[in-house]
């Protein structure tokens, strides 16, 4: 089976309409006619991840995030970049091929990135979550205890929190990656991957700082982009295993980049 045929099967089995104009959900490197020996699903095609996939004998990478360090994987300004050449040559030399599934995954019910994010955060009942799962209720606890639980459960080293650790919280709103949701009056805790810190569409960080100053129980947890969408790529691998047979499919995590 070729990589193109793998993608054909994924599109055929997708339950959300396919957007052929997406700049994200495309082949990013390698030859689509490559014969697939094994599939690695991953959150992001880092160079380290590529090496581990290759060592495991997996030559097709299905990635949720980019390969070339910008959202649409635009490489026109990178042709003379040494790292771009090194990474691309590694992919070609090892007969590898990279295809990205991002937009369709977020449009699908369930959105595996959110299912995985809720599971890795230790929040129950998110097995069928969409990209915007709505407000979830957890057993009431303090924000500090909850943040510790999320850190232990997700293993996120560089997790960042804003808010009063002593505040009593129970209403949680979760979003994947950069789609960290906006804090609302009904919500106690927002969990996301990352977000522009200030001067954006909505600035949760300053909002929560001021809410705490006003005595409101609010907090934000930033897991890091990789950690927030990582676990779902294992679920995605299981899903494609339903209709792709005879080829090994393995989840190969991207490394959490921070010390």
């Amino acid at each position, binding site marked *: 089976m070729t990589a193109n045929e793998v993608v054909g099967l994924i599109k055929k089995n997708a339950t959300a309409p396919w957007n052929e104009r997406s700049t994200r959900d495309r082949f990013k490197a390698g030859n689509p006619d490559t014969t697939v020996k094994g599939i690695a699903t991953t959150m992001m095609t880092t160079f380290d991840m590529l090496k581990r996939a290759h060592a495991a004998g997996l030559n097709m990478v299905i990635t949720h995030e980019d390969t070339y360090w910008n959202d649409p994987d635009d490489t026109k300004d990178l042709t003379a970049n040494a*790292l771009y050449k090194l990474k691309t040559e590694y992919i070609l030399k090892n007969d590898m091929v990279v295809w990205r599934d991002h937009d369709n995954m977020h449009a699908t019910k369930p959105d595996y990135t959110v299912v995985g994010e809720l599971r890795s955060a230790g929040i129950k009942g998110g097995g069928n979550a969409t990209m915007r799962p709505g407000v979830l209720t957890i057993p009431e606890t303090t924000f*500090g205890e909850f943040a510790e639980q999320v850190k232990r459960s997700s293993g996120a080293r560089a997790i960042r929190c804003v808010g009063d650790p002593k505040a009593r919280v129970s209403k949680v709103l979760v979003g994947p990656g950069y789609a960290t949701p906006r804090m609302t009056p009904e919500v106690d805790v927002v969990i996301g991957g990352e977000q522009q810190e200030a001067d954006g569409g*909505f600035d949760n960080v300053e909002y929560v700082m001021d809410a705490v100053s006003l005595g409101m129980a609010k907090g934000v947890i930033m897991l890091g982009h990789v950690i927030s969408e990582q676990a779902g790529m294992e679920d995605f691998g299981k899903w494609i295993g339903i209709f792709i047979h005879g080829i090994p499919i393995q989840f190969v995590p991207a490394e959490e980049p921070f010390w």
Partner: protein
Amino acid sequence: MHHTHLSRRRFAVLAGSAGVAPLALTGPNPLAAQGSDQLTAEAVVRRIQTKLGGDWPSTSPDGFKAGDPGTVVKGIATTAMATLEVLKAAVKANANLILTYEPTFYARADGAAPAAAGRGRGTFGFGPDDPVVKAKREWIDKNGVVVFRLRDHWQSRQENEMVTALAGVLGWSNRRIKSDDALYDIPASSAENTVAMIRGKLKLRGGLRAVGDKKASVRRVLLYPGSMTPAVMWQRYSEVDMIVAGEVREWENTHYAADMFAAGEKRALVTIGRVASEEPGMRACADWLKTVVKEVPATWIDAGDPYWRPA
């Protein structure tokens, strides 16, 4: 408000809702104070504009965000982000005009009506009826505080205070290689020791994150307060041992730094937090204000590192 003596264009800039053309800074100041006890917030802003000079881009987010610009100023406080805690500290320090680098009302729209595209989806900005927005506005009005956003106009100073002030706090003032570039040659040390030093000097909590080679020997550093785009990262990372930036996007710049590490490159990318990276520049702004607005005291108030890490 009644400002018939202000041209429409000039008022637009003052109010942060600028028209199409940049502000012309000529002629006598119609808002000049009658005496030092009558120095209004508007007069202070006019003086800042005159003294800073340069271009005043019409797309600027700068302008009055809350309070009455006609308020007589007792003292000025500068900050990277006018949180409620910063405003409270300002009032305690007897300052009632706050100059903030970042928004006051939790979005670029900064208290203005959210953009049409965001309406209904509930994801853009925070409307005037939001309880936090409301409470902050009430607090500001009750305490007679005026908030002005001073970002583009301060940033565009030739001296590039945002960079030099950050270097100053890190102890690198005399280490700059060229006056027109933010490159510094610092005493060589490992990346992890350099990171520990940065964390200590900037009093950071959970906001600092580093990626790359911990053991790399760091001598040449690029300072980049604020947000760094991937294009800048691709162009400049190979020139230096370390980039110290405010913030980046993790699937772009952080990914690049992680891949450089995987390729064996001995470098590190350190993000210290957008606001934390901007505070030294606003401290420098307070120092500068003391030289141009001598009638009232000016002080810098640190918004602090917003983040902590759970145990």
